[in-house]
């Protein structure tokens, strides 16, 4: 009889699924913005981990502070990445990562 009491494992399974979906977006999608969304999913998965471990391991609020930093960094990265994507669009008129291949061996 499995345990239906909501515990740490439930949250970790959600984060693993988010991670897997994010990874899938990253490896299969060609659109740079889609890849960015995949990265955001992975970062969210990591954040759920931090906060869940924090609650169930009785680790104070360190995990929550860490997740604030992660959110900050995610925002910074998204800003830079989108600026680069817009710039690419201005130059190439496409944001599909594999159509942009001037640099080849």
């Amino acid at each position: 009889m499995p345990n239906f009491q909501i515990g740490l494992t439930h949250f970790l399974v959600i984060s693993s699924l988010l991670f897997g979906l994010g990874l899938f977006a990253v490896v299969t999608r060609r659109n740079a913005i889609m890849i960015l969304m995949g990265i955001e999913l992975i970062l969210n998965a990591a954040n759920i981990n931090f906060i869940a471990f924090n609650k169930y391991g009785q680790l104070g609020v360190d995990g929550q502070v860490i997740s604030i930093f992660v959110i900050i960094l995610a925002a910074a990265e998204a800003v830079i990445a989108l600026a680069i994507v817009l710039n690419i669009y201005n130059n190439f008129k496409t944001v599909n990562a594999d159509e942009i291949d001037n640099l080849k061996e």
Partner: protein
Amino acid sequence: MNYYEIIFYVFAVLTVVSAGVVVFSRNIIYSAFALLFTFTGVAGIYVLLNADFIAITQLLIYVGGIMILLIFGVMLTTNVTNVEITTQTLKALPATIVVAIVSALLVSTMVSTKWAVKDPISVESTTINQIGELLLTKYLLPFEIASIVLLIAMMGAAFLARKN
């Protein structure tokens, strides 16, 4: 099932299903809007984990900031009047298999690992006080460095995006 469990499953389903839509949708606009629901669902999960401040931060920064950026990015880089807003996928089958294996491994590890779980003690109603205190003591240096990171991000993005 008590309320806690019902709310948990509502948010869990919201998060995972909308994340699935993000990843599998062929239309990038749908993906972007589905991501909005994923972020909201994650915020709900934070509330269930006693992280009220993080939940609000998540809503403000992700839903209010990053999402808007992403949607702007989609709108600016895709000709919206054009019907073809699809994003083709690449080498889908091998990727599906690999990712499925990775996820299955991860889920089974998560379930089988004996994490250092302690008995829950009564929690304070809000964590803002403690977070504020930690940010200015133990995490003072990361806090300051984060400000430099934000400065660099702002400067870099402004440089790349502005017309000379």
